[in-house]
């Protein structure tokens, strides 16, 4: 029996990298020491009034343009009321009836197919404070501490239609979204955080909303857990309720926070402290004109200018730092070679460790050492593959590694002949096969020599010498 269809929609909150907060002049960086980036306004003292940081508007408009949205031109701010310790005013200033933008889409390349993920809306809102659960998780903590450094940091919320049909697709969507944000220069993964609420159900079940999942892979894991849970419930015929859940990254499980009888009640009103945002056509066209090259255009350029294949280009543009890295390397080497080494070898190691390029510490200069080592005949391409892996594992550049391991390429006949003799002696059956015309036996023998020399032998030379020896 086919598994029931999975339906996922994401609401993603992105912290925008403005210098100051959304409604006050507090800086958005240097947040390490709790409650040091705060003022009367972001602490919500009685009598204080918010004032809109218009830098946020330009960045948000850029995001909406990149997501192909339509715009509203006149927008009030809304107060979303609920009581929670992370809310300095017990209401959040957000956009409700009239969002900044709506009806957009993001093009996803997933498993070789193009898919259009519809964007329902993009709106601006303020981040609440950060809560630290003391003595355990949200379920078990004895008490919480609140750090208002985060209170008032500008967020944009990007809401999809329920167009994602697997946890892996959700992850791919988020990666693409982040790449777009990074290309726009509005989001900075090193300092700012991305959080999503995932709405998920499988055909026949009631929707569950998993709140506040940080990062990208975590979203995939949380969604995967939910899909399994829904399917199991469905199989058992258990009644499913619409509910809000929490994902615990330590256990990989979700827990019910509350069952929803109806939609949540937030008692939205227009925030009367703020004037309405007037979005002019001039501003939109100015932002449109200054939009940088976006991932999809960049992929097209990679294919056209550098003759990369679709998959290579797609992999590179999905991570801005990777695409930048690629283009930086091109100053020294030919694109196809670089692309091949990044997409196959480097990505293999990064994915193995589940880290980003930035986290790996791999630099353009270090990576290019590989090619000069190969060009100079110091290492073989097989050794180079090992070095890429070691570069990521040990955080040492190829040159440092070559020095430390004493690696060098062996290509002189006098250095190779004794090893070749040994291999021929120990593999008499392969030698017989070769002599009877089986070409594969030669590969085997070359492989044995490579193994004996720890990959340092020059394969072409070995081939030549074996052939000569067995004549």
């Amino acid at each position: 029996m086919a598994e029931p269809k999975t339906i996922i929609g994401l609401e993603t909150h992105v912290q925008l990298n403005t210098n100051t907060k959304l409604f006050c002049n507090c800086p958005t960086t240097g947040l390490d020491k709790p409650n040091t980036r705060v003022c009367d306004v972001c602490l919500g003292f009685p009598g204080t009034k918010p004032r809109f940081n218009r830098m946020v508007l330009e960045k948000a408009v850029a995001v909406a343009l990149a997501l192909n949205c339509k715009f509203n031109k006149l927008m009030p701010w809304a107060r979303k009321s609920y009581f929670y310790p992370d809310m300095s005013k017990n209401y959040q200033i957000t956009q409700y009836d009239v969002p900044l933008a709506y009806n957009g889409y993001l093009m996803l390349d997933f498993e070789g197919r193009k898919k259009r993920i519809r964007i329902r809306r993009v709106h601006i809102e303020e981040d609440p404070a950060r809560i630290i659960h003391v003595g355990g998780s949200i379920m078990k903590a004895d008490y919480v501490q609140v750090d208002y450094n985060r209170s008032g940091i500008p967020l944009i919320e990007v809401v999809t239609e329920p167009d994602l049909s697997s946890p892996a697709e959700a992850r791919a969507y988020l990666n693409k979204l982040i790449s777009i944000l990074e290309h726009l220069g509005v989001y900075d993964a090193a300092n700012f955080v991305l959080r999503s609420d995932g709405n998920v159900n499988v055909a026949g079940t009631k929707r569950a909303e998993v709140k506040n999942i940080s990062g990208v892979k975590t979203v995939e894991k949380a969604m995967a857990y939910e899909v399994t849970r829904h399917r199991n419930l469905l199989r058992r015929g258990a009644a499913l309720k619409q509910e809000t859940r929490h994902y615990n990254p330590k256990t990989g499980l979700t827990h019910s926070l509350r069952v929803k009888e109806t939609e949540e009640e937030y008692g939205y009103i227009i925030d009367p402290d703020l004037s309405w945002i007037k979005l002019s056509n001039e501003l939109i066209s100015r932002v449109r004109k200054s939009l940088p090259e976006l991932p999809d255009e960049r992929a097209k350029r990679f294919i056209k200018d550098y003759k990369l294949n679709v998959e290579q280009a797609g992999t590179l543009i999905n991570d801005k730092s990777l695409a930048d890295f690629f283009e930086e390397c091109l100053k020294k080497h030919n694109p196809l070679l670089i692309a091949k080494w990044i997409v196959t070898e480097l990505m293999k190691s990064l994915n193995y460790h589940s880290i980003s390029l930035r986290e790996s510490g791999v630099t353009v200069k270090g990576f290019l050492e590989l090619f000069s080592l190969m060009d100079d005949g110091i290492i073989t391409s097989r050794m180079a593959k090992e070095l890429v892996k070691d570069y990521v594992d040990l955080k040492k550049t190829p040159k440092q590694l070559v020095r430390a391991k004493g690696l060098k390429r062996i290509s002189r006949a006098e250095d190779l002949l004794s090893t070749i003799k040994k291999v021929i002696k120990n593999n008499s059956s392969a030698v017989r096969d070769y002599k009877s015309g089986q070409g594969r036996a030669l590969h085997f023998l070359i492989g044995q020599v490579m193994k004996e020399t720890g990959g340092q032998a020059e394969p072409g030379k070995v081939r030549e010498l074996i052939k000569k020896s067995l004549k």
Partner: protein
Amino acid sequence: MNAVEFISKARRGEIDLKRFYRQLFSKLHDINDKYECFITICRDEALKQLKNLPRGRLYGLPVSVKDALCTKGIKTTAGSRILGDYTPPFDSTAVARIKAEGGVIIGKTCMDEFGFGGFSTNCAYKVPKNPHDLERSCGGSSGGAGCITSVLDEPHIAIGESTGGSITSPASFCGVCGFTPTYGRVSRYGLIDYANSLDKIGPMAKTVREIALMLKVISGHDLKDQTSRMEKVPDYARTGSVKGLRIGIPREYFKDVPDDISNTVWKAVKELESMGARVKNVSLKTTKYSLPAYYVTAMCEASTNLARLCGMRYSLEAPLKGNFNEYFSKIRSKGFGQEAKRRIILGTYARMSGYRDKYYLQALKVRTLIIRDFKQAFKTCDLLAAPSMPVIAPRFDEIEKLSPLENYLMDILTVAPNLAGIPMLSVPCGKVNGLPVGLHLMADHLEEQKLINAGVAYHG
């Protein structure tokens, strides 16, 4: 001696301010014992201010401030127990501007909790007594401001605040002048909010000339309040003339007013006419919808404003027990008075999904129609004139018997201009049964000067 004369003398060095203030404060304590108009008298802070007083437009002038405006280092309660020991870390913009011009803050005046009331009887601390009859109310919610303005012989200007009539009501009941500026003319930064789209800070004084002086100081754009108006503040001329002014009499504003009050106001209108004003009848047809539109809007906004008061970051606290909901409830049950609780519940209800369209959004639409109505009237009139209040100051025992709805009905004449955000001035225009009656003058947005001209001409 009025404030204008006092300031010129003080600037010329003809007044020993130190001595003046020592005497003033001993008097203020006696006054407060009798009339209960201050929540806080700030003698030490005032004397400290004297040591380094800017020689500005208000040099040396005693200024009282409604307790809804934040004052740095001076307790600010907004009349509520939940802010019982709250000392703000900053000055409201209006107070900062007063201080910068050499005004001296003498105390924080009594008010209904957060402005919720028309008689200053909903105050957690004191109930100001009407100087004309101690058994009667001063009006509200800026009751303490009206009271001290009436009772103090020394030069002084009070700062009040109006959401739906809270300056006009005490001015009328106490027999003083009260000015409610155009919405946004005075920055609201540091004003503890009642209903942000309606709140307006304004001066109260014995004369309109004094009001004009204060209005100049506190008005003007403020980067800290996005709803403050950008337009330049004129030097309000303090000369009075009504010659050629077209004064409209909205018939709906006289309909349910007792004859003795209505006649007193008509007499004042005739006097304005004899001074050269042209009087004509107008009609404001949306008047009857203004009360529900006002209360829905004000309560919706108020219920969100008060949410932040939960005992977590400042003021009232209790031992931590239970979860945060239980803790917040405990603090709020203890800290809010009955009227505040009523408005939180009503305001929360009117913005819930399912009711939001019917009440909150409907009220916003009605408000737009009311504004349009006034704008239409001001096409043919410079000013509108009406009674300030539909009653004279009621006795406290009468107030006790009023239902909440009867209470709200007292605002019937003031809520529409407050919803429209137009400037208005209440000046004393005679007495009924020995108690003051107010003449209410209203003008189009930013036409404060016209009100001052008429007010000075009529009252001085």
